[in-house]
């Protein structure tokens, strides 16, 4: 009886650890990283034209 209980406990423990480890490797989502930003550059042509033609332009 004692052996069976211990075996059941060890199986449960193994399953729990197995499932938990999934979250640490292949199944975990990949987080974004901040962009490295440098000097000021020209806005794309489409943005320049949008700002010139539409006061609602949001770029």
């Amino acid at each position, binding site marked *: 009886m004692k052996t069976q209980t211990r075996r059941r406990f060890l199986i449960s423990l193994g399953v729990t650890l197995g499932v938990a480890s999934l979250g640490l490797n*292949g199944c975990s989502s990949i987080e*974004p990283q901040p962009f490295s930003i440098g000097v000021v550059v020209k806005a794309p042509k489409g*943005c320049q034209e949008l700002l010139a033609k539409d006061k609602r332009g949001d*770029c």
Partner: protein
Amino acid sequence: MSDLKSELQYIHRTVSKHFVQTNDIGESWDMPPPGYNGHQWLRDDCDGFCLACRVLLRDMGIASRLVYCELGRSGHLVVEVQGWILDLRQRSVVANTLLPHYRWLRISGYEAGDPWREIINDEATLTLTMASLG
């Protein structure tokens, strides 16, 4: 899933649902019509998709930036929120680290008319991505 990512997914899904992609002819950027709330049909390219997302993001009080990039030899525009990318070409919101084939070039500010800045494509992001993908 984080609250922010859930909100971004909602916006991406809402805009995509009523968006008909047209050929990217020229560089004409157009805002969605006044009063746009995600339920009007739009026919446009990646620029129009981004500007539509930006309207909804602003309505929800979420700060975003536009990112001009290259895919192969084609110019492309996406929206960025804390590194998450809303992109007409993707089925859902993805982390910028999951798009190693995108060449990030320029990023807008958070407000209209803010200066754009160059994006430095250092190896760190790519290295991180490749390591994560194993």
